[in-house]
């Protein structure tokens, strides 16, 4: 079947089978250990990223159960106070930095190149590097926790508790370096996504035809780029304070503890939208499939996402209302906290209209969207409540806040994410997840989630503070806490069922075919799972719902080379073809670079000189990475 492939062979005159063989020869990741470590295929890395993030979700969930076990009864002695501190810190840190942000980026790493119709993500080697950095950051946090060196300062590590005076030992340094690892990886992925979306879209995919999930990831990536440097600056300053005796946060020498809070929340509030916007994008991309009509209000939805992205930077101070800032400042931030309810409202109405004018099909992904609606609106309402200074003064640091942010995080991000997994699982694996089990998962999680977290509002109003390892019998919180803990067990069972379904379906699920849901976007225009080269010929886009409007015939572009990894660069606005560009081959250097960087960062916890000698292997690895290999990919 394989016609001989000459130099500069184009796809134009190849039939399907020889084209597939030729593309496989250049795009397939080699088998074996080397191939696994050297791969730069966005789908392989994306799958790994997603799986790893879900492992961290499960780990974090185990810690949540331990906390609930401890809190089920008053004056319980399951956990020591010190262990409880480590557990809530590692739970929060792990959920935010190792699960929620990475899992959304991971979905994008897999899906965005497919949805925009290209063959690999921009900067595939950076992508490989980013995964290794993420993995090491996760191992660092959990490894430290297992040897009783887990950070114990809360997921936002306020000074002075985290400073050199009170945070003795290496626990805080571990937290701070974990931040460095995860932020480097998050920033790298953000850059890849921005460039993929701006420059690698299929010909004809002008700005008003970009799938909404892709729009969401574009905005999210910009938020990451603007927000994450703040936490890097903060954690670097913290490490310097602890390691070489600087005084950024030391009031005795002209430093300031609130500086930490400003820097952290300048990142931390946008962080909420870094988690939430991708979920919004998932909903907007999934919903049309299950109501069988295009999304209502494409433009308002895009504008809403962009304005949420901008407004999210005007909100950070609302985490600090109780710190006694000037009155005018507080009013400004209350106003902007309320203002962000506006674009959120627009989104909700666009979705409702889409459902209203459509013909809903109640499959599992759609059920998760319904679960999202209810839960997220709840979380939004309590959010507007704590955005007012007097109320926040009452409720700050109480279980009301714990309830609020779990409604937003679990309802606003985890439910859509699970819906997304049910929806795209057939694309990832070629097999469907079980519809029957899926309905149970959705129902169980929704009910148990509300039973677990709703009573926490009440506990907060009754005065129960967050981050306490126990409470006295006569506080009268025992009954509700027991109820919460029992519900948490049911919640865990729901997650377990989900994992069971995913693992079982990956091997034994019903074969899916290219487009099992009859969806409209490009990722469904190729096989499930897609071949290493994604599309045998790059699709050409003529509308916002390409697969619904071309009557089963996919318009494509020809003329690319098949004897090297080649993809298409298009213009930012109209996605007009600009150049055929090569895409890098597999290489082991990103892994070496990640390991060298790890040595530098870990060494720096012990001695500042590690930064100096550690820079040598990092430099060598980077030179190895960027030195041209002299293959056809180099030609121009």
């Amino acid at each position: 079947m394989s016609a001989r492939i000459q130099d500069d062979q184009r796809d134009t005159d190849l039939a399907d089978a020889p084209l597939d063989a030729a593309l496989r020869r250049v795009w397939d990741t080699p088998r074996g250990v080397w191939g696994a470590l050297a791969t730069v295929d966005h789908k392989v890395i994306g799958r790994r990223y997603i799986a790893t993030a879900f492992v961290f979700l499960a780990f974090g969930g185990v810690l949540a159960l331990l906390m609930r076990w401890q809190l089920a009864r008053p004056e319980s002695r399951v956990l020591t106070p010190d262990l409880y501190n480590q557990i809530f810190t590692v739970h929060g840190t792990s959920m935010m930095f190792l699960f929620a942000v990475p899992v959304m980026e991971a979905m994008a790493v897999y899906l965005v190149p497919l949805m925009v119709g290209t063959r690999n993500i921009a900067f595939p080697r950076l992508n490989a590097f980013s995964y290794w950095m993420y993995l090491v950051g996760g191992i660092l946090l959990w490894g430290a926790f297992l040897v009783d060196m887990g950070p114990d300062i809360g997921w936002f590590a306020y000074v002075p508790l985290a400073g050199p005076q009170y945070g003795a030992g290496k626990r805080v340094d571990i937290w701070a370096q974990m931040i460095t690892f995860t932020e480097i990886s998050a920033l790298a992925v953000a850059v890849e996504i921005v460039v993929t979306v701006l420059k690698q879209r299929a010909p004809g995919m002008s700005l008003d035809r970009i799938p909404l999930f892709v729009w969401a990831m574009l905005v999210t990536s910009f938020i990451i780029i603007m927000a994450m440097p703040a936490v890097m600056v903060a954690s670097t300053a913290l490490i310097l304070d602890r390691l070489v005796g600087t005084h950024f946060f030391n009031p005795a020498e002209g430093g300031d503890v609130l500086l930490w809070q400003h820097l952290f929340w300048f990142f931390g509030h946008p962080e909420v939208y870094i988690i939430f916007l991708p979920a919004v994008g998932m909903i907007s991309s999934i919903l049309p499939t299950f109501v069988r009509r295009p999304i209502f209000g494409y433009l308002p939805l895009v504008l809403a996402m962009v304005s949420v992205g901008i407004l999210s930077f005007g909100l950070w101070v609302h985490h600090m209302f109780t710190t006694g800032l000037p009155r005018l400042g507080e009013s400004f931030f209350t106003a902007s906290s309320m203002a962000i309810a506006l674009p959120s409202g627009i989104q909700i109405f666009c979705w409702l209209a889409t459902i209203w004018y459509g013909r809903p099909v109640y499959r599992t992904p759609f059920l998760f969207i319904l679960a999202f609606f209810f839960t997220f609106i709840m979380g939004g309402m309590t959010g507007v409540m704590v955005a007012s200074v007097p109320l926040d003064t009452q409720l700050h640091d109480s279980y009301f806040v714990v309830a609020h942010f779990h409604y937003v995080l679990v309802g606003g991000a985890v439910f859509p994410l699970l819906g997304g997994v049910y929806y795209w699982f057939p694309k990832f694996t070629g097999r469907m997840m079980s519809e029957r089990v899926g309905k149970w998962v959705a129902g169980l999680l929704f009910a148990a989630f509300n039973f677990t977290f709703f009573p926490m509002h009440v506990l907060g109003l009754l005065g129960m503070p967050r981050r306490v390892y126990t409470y006295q019998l006569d506080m009268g919180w025992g009954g509700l806490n027991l109820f919460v803990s029992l519900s948490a067990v049911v919640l865990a069972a729901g997650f377990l069922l989900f994992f069971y379904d995913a693992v079982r379906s990956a091997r034994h699920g019903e074969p899916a075919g290219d487009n099992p849901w009859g969806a409209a976007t490009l990722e469904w225009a190729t096989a499930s799972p897609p071949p290493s080269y994604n599309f045998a010929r790059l699709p050409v886009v003529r509308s916002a719902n390409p697969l619904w409007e071309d009557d089963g015939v996919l318009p494509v572009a020809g003329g690319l080379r098949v004897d090297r990894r080649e993809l298409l660069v298009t213009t930012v606005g109209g996605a007009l073809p600009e150049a055929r560009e090569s895409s890098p081959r597999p290489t082991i250097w990103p892994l070496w670079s990640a390991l060298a960087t790890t040595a530098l960062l870990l060494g720096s916890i012990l001695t500042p000189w590690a930064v100096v000698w550690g820079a040598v292997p990092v430099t060598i690895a980077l030179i190895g990475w960027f030195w041209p290999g002299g293959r056809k990919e180099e030609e121009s």
Partner: protein
Amino acid sequence: MKQDVVVDLSDLPMNGSGTASLTWWGTVAFMLIEGTGFALMISVYLYLGSLAPAWPIEAPPPEWGPGTGVTLLLLASLVPNVLLSRWAAARDLRKVRAGLLIMAVFGTAPLVLRVWEFMALDVSWDSNAYGSAVWMLLGLHTTHILTDLLETYVLAALMFTRHADNPRRFGDVQDGAMYWNFVVLTWLPIYACLYGIPRL
């Protein structure tokens, strides 16, 4: 799915240059990240300065000499840098080689002078928050010069190998030159901050 070839891409160039190059966009994105980092560090400096009863805290303002020298060197380096970028655009290998060597020198010189600039701060990073802020600002920018300089060295070496005569390499040189412009331009607000604010 059935396919229908409607566009022919055969005649497109085999790699993109300028804004059609992915690396160009990547470089811009990284400049955005680092620019945000610098803006934040300057904000930290100003924030701490606004809290302190006197700024600088228990230290004289930094001496003008070495820092101004660094600034002049950096500004002067813009001339060969812009020329280098032009030569790379024209794909003139001989001039690009010469230009990279010149830029290697122009990158090294301010780095050497930096040593004196650190000493001219007249305060240690562990004396007080003022010292911490100025050392971190200056340190961050020095790291910047250093990484770009290493890149220049590597590129210069590369241009003397068989990989040199390739539009891709010239694109790399142009992106490198753009990044150096960024390193110089970000220095100006930092310079104003370090040397101007304490004298207000």
